[in-house]
């Protein structure tokens, strides 16, 4: 599959954040996700969706992201770490 373009990636990152797999992007710093964090988030989403947890945004994973669904997150918002 062709490597995802930057804007696709941002859509997927937004999706992962919306449904609790990534922390909400920090509007101030426009926090960029490390590749490792992104891969972990994708794997968690694949497990939840009953897909093979490869951590790679493959066709099946992106297709599942487009399936109609409930708006509520799949994972509870990560508890804020005490500073």
């Amino acid at each position, binding site marked *: 599959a062709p490597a995802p373009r930057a804007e696709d990636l941002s859509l997927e990152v937004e999706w992962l954040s919306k*449904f609790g797999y990534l922390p909400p992007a920090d509007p101030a710093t426009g926090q960029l996700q490390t590749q490792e964090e992104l891969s972990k988030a994708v794997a968690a989403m694949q497990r*939840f969706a009953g897909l093979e947890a490869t951590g790679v945004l493959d066709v099946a994973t992106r297709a599942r992201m*487009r399936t*109609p*669904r*409930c708006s*509520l*997150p*799949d994972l509870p918002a990560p508890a804020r770490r005490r500073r």
Partner: protein
Amino acid sequence: QAPAPTKWSKRNLSWRVRTFPRDSPLGRDTVRALMHYALKVWGDITPLNFHEVAGSAADIQIDFSTADHNDRYPFDGPGGTVAHAFLPGDHHTAGDAHFDDDEAWTFRSSDAHGMDLFAVAVHEFGHAIGLSHVAATQSIMQPYYQGPVGDPLHYGLPYADRVRAWQLYGVRESVSPTAQLDTAEPEETPLLPEPPDHRPSTPHVPGKDVPHRCSAHFDAVAQIRGEAFFFKGRYFWRLNRDRHLVSLQPAQMHRFWRGLPPHLDGVDAVYERTIDHKIVFFRGDRYWVFQDTHVEEGFPRPVSDFGLPPGGVDAAFSWAHSDKTYFFKDQLYWRYNELTRRMDPGHPARSPPWRGVPSTLDDAMRWSDGAAYFFRGREYWKVPDSELAVAPGYPQSTARDWLVCRDPQADPEGGGAEGEAGAHAPPGQHDRSHAEDGYQVCACSS
């Protein structure tokens, strides 16, 4: 670490469809019926009781909205996110459910592109009672839409979802001691439209267990908001303020008086409290208080709250000239002060203050003419306003004078179920209902 699950502390939850889908082929009644059944899925397996209300104070407000609708889950047009609901908790949206009105909501449709409203509603009400998403593919609580889940009348939750609901609320109590185990439960169900090819050819005929008004011994009689209610088993008849019978056919008690246990097969006594106009139902050792037609939270409660002994009451009514309520059981009666909420001293006593009233009663009520009426078996006694003795010529026939039946004396075999009033109605009975003129008078009050 998953947050502690939130759940409702109360068991009676009201719901209301506040806004309906705008351009949907699904009519409003179908949407309401589907919501009823989707809630019933969870109510059948837990101690939660759901009842529809009209007011804006419903616990579960249901809306069909589009795009940004003032919560943190804006919709995104057709597809994508299709609905969401809020978990229980102390915020004002707790339990509310929102459906994307840009979706093509369907019911019993083979349209693969439609969104089956019942399936999505069952999922969302799972959230509304406190369940979160799960990864299990067999669960109704997995986040992705999986298509229709079958007929709402026969849908059964996957076991994993039942267990998670039981972990929150425990299981639904078994049948109540008074219910007959083998009675088929007539469901209190809003009607779903039949699939086009299965529309029944014969009109709906009331079940065979429906009592007949002309041969019934009534369990309870009450004047409520100026209207008369005659209760028998799971049914009741209603007379409006002009003493006209609203319908020859009885109504189902559970479908009007919302929040009574589904297995309750009758009541012992009913009365309207003079101080706050709430309505009190008695059955055995328990009682329920209704605000309008919905039971209040925290009921049933024991009749010992009134200072009554175990075993309950046969009859109850409020006396016009005081804030006193009289309770009757077997040959005894009590006088209760609604203001101080205490029994008056010297009770129970044996002979009630009205001469000529039978020693045991089915129920009693005050009517708009100011008189008190006492009912037992097929007869009633009248004590005119401001008097303390039964009027001459009583008892009279309840069926004839209140329920528009033929006079049992004039035609003894006509006193039974076929004793419908008609050409034989006794002369001078001015308060005749129109029922015998070949059509039924039906009134809807809510």
